[in-house]
């Protein structure tokens, strides 16, 4: 194998690089007024098996209305268009510099951060959603013991989560902790 072909192959990304890129993508996908949600992202990317051009075609065709998926309710057309815009641009610009396995990991992290970022961040948002959080996530759908008088003061599970600088995404502190965890350990003797 020549040196040139070895240099042209995309390098393996570190977890921190992947998470940082996923954070950027999730923020772009979640931007108002037509945010894309995790289920829409997973619908397109969870079957990704390394064929970037097939993924690109799926995005383009689905957003253009082929197959009728854009006509589903719940603003699905807008979600597909947002996905096509954000992911399409990313794939066009950067996919050639990513390994397929890293891209799959990136989509998984993006979906996770998109899910975390959909957590309501203010009291007004909680009120807009009928005062309910979705169950199946930390803090959401927490069981309230029955019996006894209920205080008018909000319980910890009722209080809106603290404001973060990126709607539930990873902060700089978290990334630093992640980097610390991922630092290679010194090789032990005998290895």
């Amino acid at each position, binding site marked *: 194998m020549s040196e040139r072909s070895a240099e042209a192959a995309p390098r393996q990304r570190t977890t921190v690089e992947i998470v940082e890129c996923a954070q950027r993508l999730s923020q772009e996908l979640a931007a108002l007024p037509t945010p894309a949600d995790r*289920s829409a992202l*997973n*619908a*397109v990317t*969870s*079957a990704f098996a390394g064929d970037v051009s*097939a993924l690109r*075609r*799926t995005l383009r*065709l*689905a957003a253009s209305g*082929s*197959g*009728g*998926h854009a*006509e*589903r*309710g719940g603003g699905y057309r807008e979600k597909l268009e947002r996905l096509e815009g954000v992911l399409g641009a990313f794939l066009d610009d950067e996919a050639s510099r990513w390994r397929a396995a890293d891209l799959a990991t990136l989509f998984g992290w993006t979906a996770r951060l998109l899910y975390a970022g959909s957590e309501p961040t203010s009291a007004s948002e909680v009120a807009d959603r009928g005062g309910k959080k979705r169950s199946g996530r930390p803090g959401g759908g927490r069981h309230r013991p029955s019996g006894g008088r209920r205080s008018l003061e909000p319980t910890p599970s009722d209080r809106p989560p603290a404001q973060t600088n990126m709607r539930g995404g990873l902060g700089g502190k978290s990334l630093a902790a992640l980097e610390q965890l991922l630092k290679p350990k010194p090789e032990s003797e005998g290895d």
Partner: protein
Amino acid sequence: MTYYHDVARAPADPAAAVDHGFDDVSRGISGWLLLDYTTLRGKFVSPGTGRLVLRGSEGSEVPAAEAARSLGRPVLPGTGIKGAVRTVFEVLTGSCDPTRRGCNSCAACRLFGALGRRGRLGFDDAVGQEVTEGAERVPIPFKPRKPADGIRLYDLGPALLQTGARVEEKLVREVFRGTFRGRMAFHHATPGELGLVLLALGWDGGGVPFPLRLGGVRFHGEGAASVSVAGAFLAGESLHRERLEAADAQTRATEWAHEAHERLGPKARAVLAEVARVVQERRS
């Protein structure tokens, strides 16, 4: 003209439900049945995954809603089969509605399980044996207006608008046609329970069978599969195992169905008759 039929549930209060004597597990049977799920002629099943895949050759590709596969082979997920069977079982036995409030003690909760209670019945994924794959256009699904206290049985006709016109078919889905085979395992089940499960599967031991409804697009008359017993494996009282031929299994199943019929209350008999009537009407 409607394309569905709402069936009221029996009383949700477990204490008010008919006592089927299911607490006595001393004479319970353990083992498994090998079941064949065959799509009706002209019908398909489409167990969805929530993903989009490209169908067709490059240049004329269409994104389609993916159907479930395991290791590349078409499957009917066992969880979906169990849920479909449980719903009918609940109606037949006057069990609780677990989506509202699990009682943990009614006939369905005791056999199928509940929160904190392992069930005595389980369905493996049914794997395609002779299955043809394809893609079909179907109506865009809508949130069904489920009856307040009951289940909705869809017939085998197309979804209709209030005007009586057919709903336009726009959405492309992957579909399967053919026969799937999977096991139904059970532990310490009584003959009456097994018979009721067979009735809920749509197999009536020579009576009027009704198709089990599985996967997506049920509201459009699809997802209909007939169920037959292809074999059985039973653990005897002395734990001597014997392998039964299919014909023998059918005979035993008939006995179970007979016992189940005897245990059915008048409400459940009415439901079965109602189901049979809907099927007969559609066929005629």
